[in-house]
């Protein structure tokens, strides 16, 4: 993978790690030589190649994804705030000794700046990076294997995500969610997302949904996903009530507003997220379904 270093077309390749340190994470640069820089550039290329094998779709927090996908998220999206901060951080401190304490490392990244100042950041969750330290490595010395006693850091073959000014390309959604601190971000965004829904759906009382979503990550993910889709603006009240009734979502009406029963909060969010639906292929026998995953079908 490394091989002999070739002259570079890019002027700078910086390597760094993210450190868990109490309340705040810290990101520092670690100096690496030209061969490691080449290996990191090859990781970016390998990531691009993997991404290019699949058509990109937009990342939605409520979706259940496979281990590798090709997802896209605009850099200015609220869910991208932490990853955006990593990508845009300037003049990071240099600390060559940070890898002497590898258990604090939760991710590593490369930053590649071309001759025109265009920046690409590749980020990888540090599972393998750390894992090697826990296993015993052997190397062939003379004709016998021996334990490697030095600390060895193994780079992976590709990154979990690539960040550019045009947006985030996600290869491994779980890596993106971990590095991007999505769980906390989505929970934190729940009140703001409720406000957006309240303005789009003034005929729904969201108070019970809000208190539930701020403490339940799955509900907060549904909320974030509903807001990402931006498909709540012209929802018809009677159509919503009808779909709730046909999919078993328990609601009642108080003072002209739809109030969701406590036991149906997730299902109600599922209705807004287009996950609960009814088909009637057999006349007089409607069937209701819940979709664990869905994508819009473009007709015409």
């Amino acid at each position, binding site marked *: 993978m490394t091989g002999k*270093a070739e002259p*570079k077309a890019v*002027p*700078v*390749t*910086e390597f760094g790690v993210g*450190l868990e*340190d109490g309340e*705040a994470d*810290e*990101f520092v*640069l670690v*100096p690496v*030589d*030209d061969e490691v*820089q080449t290996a990191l550039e090859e990781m970016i290329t390998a990531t691009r190649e993997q991404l290019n094998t699949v058509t990109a779709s937009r990342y939605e927090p409520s979706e259940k994804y496979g281990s590798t996908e090709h997802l896209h998220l605009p850099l200015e999206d609220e869910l991208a705030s932490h990853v955006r*901060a*990593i990508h*845009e*951080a*300037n*003049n*990071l*401190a*240099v*600390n*060559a*000794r940070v890898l002497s304490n590898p258990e604090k490392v939760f991710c590593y990244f490369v*930053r590649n*700046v071309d001759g025109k*100042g265009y920046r690409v950041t590749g980020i990888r969750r540090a599972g393998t990076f750390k894992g090697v330290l826990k296993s015993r490595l052997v190397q062939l010395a003379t004709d016998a294997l021996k334990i490697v006693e030095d600390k060895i850091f193994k780079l992976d073959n590709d990154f979990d995500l690539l960040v550019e000014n045009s947006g985030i390309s996600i290869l491994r959604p779980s890596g993106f969610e971990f590095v991007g601190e999505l769980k906390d971000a989505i929970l934190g965004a729940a009140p703001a997302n409720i406000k957006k829904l309240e303005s789009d759906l003034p005929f729904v009382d969201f108070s019970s949904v809000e208190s539930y979503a701020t403490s339940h990550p799955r509900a907060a993910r549904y909320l974030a996903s509903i807001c990402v889709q931006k498909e709540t603006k012209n929802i018809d009240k009677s159509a919503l009530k009808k779909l709730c009734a046909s999919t078993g979502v328990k609601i009642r009406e108080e003072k002209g507003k739809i109030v969701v029963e406590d036991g149906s909060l997730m299902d109600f969010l599922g209705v807004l997220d287009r996950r609960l639906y009814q088909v009637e292929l057999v006349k007089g026998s409607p069937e209701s379904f819940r979709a664990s995953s869905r994508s819009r079908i473009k007709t015409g």
Partner: protein
Amino acid sequence: MPTKVEGLKLARFMMVLSSISPLVVLWAIRGSKLLADKYLISFCAAMVLLPNLFLWLRITTARKLNLKRELVVGSAEDHRDHLLVYLFAMLLPFYPIDTGTWRDMAALLAALSFVVFLFWHLNLHYMNLLFAIRGYRVFTISPPTDDNPLSGRTTQVLITTRVSILGGEHIVAYRLSDTVYFEAKNDGQG
């Protein structure tokens, strides 16, 4: 936040020793009542050659291994006046001291070692007349004031032949230490 441990301690120490080369040259020219010239000049030659050889090696290694990084400029200050600090801290106090006795010599070396330690500890290893002689200037680069919580907040020192650096510029430079960077002549300045 973890305590920041400054790296490249030996390199920084050798760079400080390199920066006292002019003083050592003056000592060699002046001579000593205590040491024969052959010993004094040998010592002074070693004190000049070894640290500067190390500095040259450090710059060569940084270039060979492509140890570059990007510095984003918030503001930059030309610190040619730091050479005056150097003159007052190094050359002027130590050159005129008469080393007629071994105790004088010991006191001189002890005082110089304190100054060397301070230069090393305060990251003033970039002060070097050789850079000025070669036409380099020293700029202190302050980071841009953004609201990104991850951006670095410490100032960096850039040794460069540029005559001015504007805020917002992105400069690619070789790392000599954690805080001192070197932009060689013809390294795509602009």
